[in-house]
């Protein structure tokens, strides 16, 4: 049974609306994407949707109390809330470097959680 589904691709800020025909879980036809990443996105959404995670991690002794972190690549969507929970338990010690690895290969995904910026130590008062 062929099913018509509509997706909004999140790969880049354009957000193409993509109309897809899906039959027995297989992508049969797709239109509306501006580039081939849209096709890859729809395939992934149907089977194993992924999202990039961005959040913060606490820092001890830093110029600010938090450092922003990101997943090095998009992660399986289902793991996001678990990884956020894992990150709650972490406190980094300043100084922290940009792209420092906070958690390596989270949940066996091959994706790292890394800092998005450096966080220097707080200046002495």
């Amino acid at each position, binding site marked *: 049974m062929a099913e018509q589904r509509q997706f*909004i691709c999140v790969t*880049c800020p354009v957000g193409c609306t993509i109309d897809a025909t899906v039959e027995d879980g297989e992508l049969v036809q797709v239109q509306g994407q501006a580039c081939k990443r849209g096709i890859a996105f729809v395939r992934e959404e149907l089977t194993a949707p992924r999202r990039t995670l961005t959040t913060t991690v606490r820092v001890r002794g830093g110029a*600010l109390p938090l450092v922003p972190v990101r997943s090095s690549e998009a992660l399986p969507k289902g793991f996001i*809330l678990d990884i956020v929970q894992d990150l709650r338990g972490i406190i980094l010690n300043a100084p922290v470097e940009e792209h420092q690895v906070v958690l390596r290969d989270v949940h066996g995904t091959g994706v790292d959680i890394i800092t998005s910026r450096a966080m220097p130590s707080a200046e002495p008062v």
Partner: protein
Amino acid sequence: MRAMTCDVLVIGSGPAGLAAAYQARQSGAQQVLVIERNGELGGILPQCIHNGFGVRVFQSDLTGPEYAYRWVRQAQEAGVAFLTRTMVLAIEAGPRVVATSGELGMVEITPRALVLAMGCRERPRGALAIPGTRPAGVYTAGTAQRLVNMEGYMPGSRFVILGSGDIGMIMARRLTLEGAQVVAMVEILPYISGLRRNLVQCVRDFDIPLHLCTTVTDVRGQERVEAVEIAQVDARWQRVPGTEQTLECDALLLSVGLIPENELSRMAGVALDPVTGGPMIDERCATSIPGIYAAGNVVHVYDLVDDVTASALRAGRYAAEYALRGAATGGAATRGAPAPQPTVPVMPGANVRHVVPQHLHLPALDGDPSVVEFRVREPIEEPVQARVRAGERVLVDKRLRYARPAEMIRLEIEATTLQQFAGQLAGVNGLQVEVVRRRGEPQP
């Protein structure tokens, strides 16, 4: 008061200021100084911890901080000087810029050229006149973003978000990840005002209810927000009786528009566009005052930082050229400057709300394309033609799959196109930019 001079002075170290300063150095300006009122460089980007930045400029999907620090390093390596904790208080004729600096006290700077890159501010509750009490717990979305992402505070535990702008949608996700409940997002228009990708990855992904054609009609609570009343509105934004609902919450976030910050531009005396609130500029980012340029959100609000960077690179280049001309003629930049070239107005036509630049040189001053940026008034969710015309003549005709107010459109007019039409444009009032449905249009 400490007196300083430089070739190019840039006000603001956000993405626009950083790119303009970097390009000014690349274009040959010797002393380029960026003034930043904050202690940190990067403008708003350090609090924008989400990704989506730099897709075009760096072919990478970066977070706000990554994009900011990459540009800070580039500007530093290019020899740009920075003065932080320094706030401009006045811009007088000259231009003469008066600022207060934590490090240096009062400073007076007479640059050869000036780039305005002050960015924008969020529309606050006072501007919306939402009825109700004035309890704690009403924040603009950007304020909440700073509190959560940089200062480590949760501004509430149960949120209602008014407005479907990008900052509101981004915060809907952010707050949910931090353990809060986002009870609802309400939007007064019949469509979202931010990017569609954010509707998916920030609202739908987290099952946050979105109510269109709905607004907040009352805020309740004495010391602290306890609830808001929402109601549907008709096409004239009037409440539809009987549709009221009470939502219990302890915080209300406002994501209802960004306003270019132009107090200094007004003080400097540059001509402002009443629709955008920002300076009127030409295709080189020059304002009405020779030597003063403007780029980024201070001109009009952008959706994508990559487009801010592109406009600021232009401003930096032409500000440097202006400064170098002044240096070559012994100080007075207007001495020895070419006679002002004619410009034509660029006006919004069918379905276009506003256009930047508001005028451009015709014939073109050099071989570079003139970039025209605009937004439509109403969404058209079917193929359209976006056109630049001069009366009956069509200079640019681009097919787009749809046109939305939330997604700025940019068109490039080749210099050769302008040259081609220059001779035929005697008596033309200016250029019009329009967006029309393809349906029913005669095929070329």
